[in-house]
């Protein structure tokens, strides 16, 4: 197979992988702060895409403004979700399995809520950089691939800075690593957990906005992305941001490579097999991030 054909496949894989990575980032974020594995992260991503659809496509707001507004709306939703639903469940000491199942119930609510609010038709909006492919030699690149990569890179860089340098970020890390000490030092735990959710839903919003032009927006999209995102986050290392990125890239590329070289019908089985292999041999993932090692 020619070099350019390989490159093309890698680019396609990376494009999908970015999306899984964004969902994985959100999952790791919430996991670090609360020990909760958010099964609804994929669906939150989908909501982000739909909200952007309404703002950018239906109400014709300018793209950057719609982008920020969508993230703000989603962030607020995450904040309220945390304060109103999840944090009370933590503080009542409910069995962690129940809370996890709460996120599963949330997926049902979100998928059906989307169906009710936006209808069953598959929808899409055009990305700002346009839909015309760019030819680089024999390789064809869609403009939004580069846009997506740029956004994700900037985002992760910002997150790193945030967590290492800003007071809020340090406080969040403190709560994640040593909750009791942090609270003794005067940190309001419930606010910080809420902030974590806010960040996670904001990330989901970004993910949804980036993904909507790539794959059709349907109410069930969340569930489909979620599976691959779970594989990505576990392969890369639950709790690690680098792991989320690498895991996403691996899943995205492995998918398309398998589909090309072997058969496309079983590519999901292939990914799951890799996942199970990791769980058997190295459940911590590639960048095994214990809570004390994350970021």
């Amino acid at each position: 197979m020619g070099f350019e054909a390989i490159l093309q496949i890698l680019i396609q894989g990376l494009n999908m992988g970015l999306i899984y990575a964004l969902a994985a980032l959100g999952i790791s974020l919430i996991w670090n702060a609360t020990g909760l594995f958010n099964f609804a992260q994929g669906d939150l991503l989908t909501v982000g895409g739909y909200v952007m659809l309404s703002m950018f496509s239906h109400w014709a707001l300018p793209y950057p403004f719609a982008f920020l507004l969508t993230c703000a709306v989603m962030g607020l939703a995450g904040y309220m979700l945390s304060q109103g639903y999840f944090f009370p469940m933590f503080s009542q000491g409910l069995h962690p399995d129940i809370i996890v199942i709460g996120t599963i119930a949330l997926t049902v609510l979100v998928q059906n809520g989307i169906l009710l609010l936006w209808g069953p038709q598959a929808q899409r909006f055009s990305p700002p950089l346009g839909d015309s492919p760019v030819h680089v030699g024999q390789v064809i690149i869609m403009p939004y691939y580069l846009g997506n990569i740029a956004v994700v890179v900037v985002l992760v860089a910002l997150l790193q800075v945030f967590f290492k340098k800003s007071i809020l970020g340090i406080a969040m890390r403190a709560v994640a690593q040593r909750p009791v000490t942090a609270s003794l030092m005067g940190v309001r735990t419930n606010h910080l957990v809420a902030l974590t959710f806010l960040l996670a839903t904001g990330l989901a919003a970004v993910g949804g906005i980036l993904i909507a032009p790539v794959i059709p927006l349907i109410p069930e999209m969340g569930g489909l992305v979620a599976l691959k995102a779970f594989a990505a986050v576990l392969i890369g290392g639950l709790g690690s941001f680098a792991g989320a990125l690498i895991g996403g890239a691996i899943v995205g590329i492995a998918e398309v490579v398998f589909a090309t070289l072997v058969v496309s019908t079983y590519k999901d089985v292939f990914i799951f097999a890799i996942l199970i292999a990791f769980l058997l041999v190295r459940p911590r993932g590639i960048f095994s991030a214990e809570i004390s090692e994350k970021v």
Partner: protein
Amino acid sequence: MSRLNAYLRRIGLAQGILLVLALIPLIGVPAYQFYILERGLQNVLVVLSLVILLGYTGQLSLGQAGLVAVGAYTYGILCVNYGLSPWLGLVAAPLAAGLVGVVVGFPSFKLKGPFLVVNTLAFSEIVRILILNNEKVTGGPFGLNRIPAIATGLPLYYFMLVVAFLAAVATLRLSRSHIGLALKAIREDEVAAEAMGVHVRNYKLLAFVISAVLAGVSGVFFANLAGYLNPDSFTINESSTYLLMVVLGGMDNVAGGILSSLTVTSLPEALRFMARSRMVVYSLILLLVLRYSNVLNLANLKRMMRRRQPTPDASTVAQNKVNR
């Protein structure tokens, strides 16, 4: 009345409920409602499987739909493709499911929390995709049709009821047996259990196999009720619903599990008058019940005695994470 009390106390709440169910056809239930009842009953077996796996052993699984599928399709394939007697299918299907349970349980014993959940989910999806893509054997997306039944109508209902009754009794006995104690020890603290001489790995595997067998039987009943199988009936959505049922029933509570299986199965039907918003309302109800499950739940009260209500502060968040 005290006679009734004494009787109920002796046979237990779970059996009492099933007894009531046995009497229902006598008061005459319309066909549609009766079907919902039968579906609820079929789901009871899967819920029982989760009572054992999650309630007793603390293993959270999103993969029961795959095991139900193995049971259903084994039964269907043997009866339709090979012309075996449905009774043979009834025996073979849970065995096949149990075998798959071993395969799933094997990598699972090291895993906890989300790792375990995702693992079971992955297996379940693999099963579904394999069924979908092997048309010659399973009918693939066209499904498997005209599946012969062990019985139909009322006889089928009573047969399922008897099986459910036996399963409930067996589960309760298991709970009180030394196996049950071992499983619960594993749920509470694996390290301590191992230290006390409980072979954690073997018992976990046992829990997976038993729950797989139960799910397999449920699959046979699904095939009997529907007469038609299609992989679209065995997805994450179904696995999620089973989990919701067992949690709403109190996780390790057999009676609660039976009740919640019946209620959750009938809930979407009861909400049909809401047309397009019914699933939203349905999921809202579930979310709310989960949120307040420490109050609303039948037997979570027992659980709450163990985890006393702390003041909302950092230590509970920490405690939540420590339990990974």
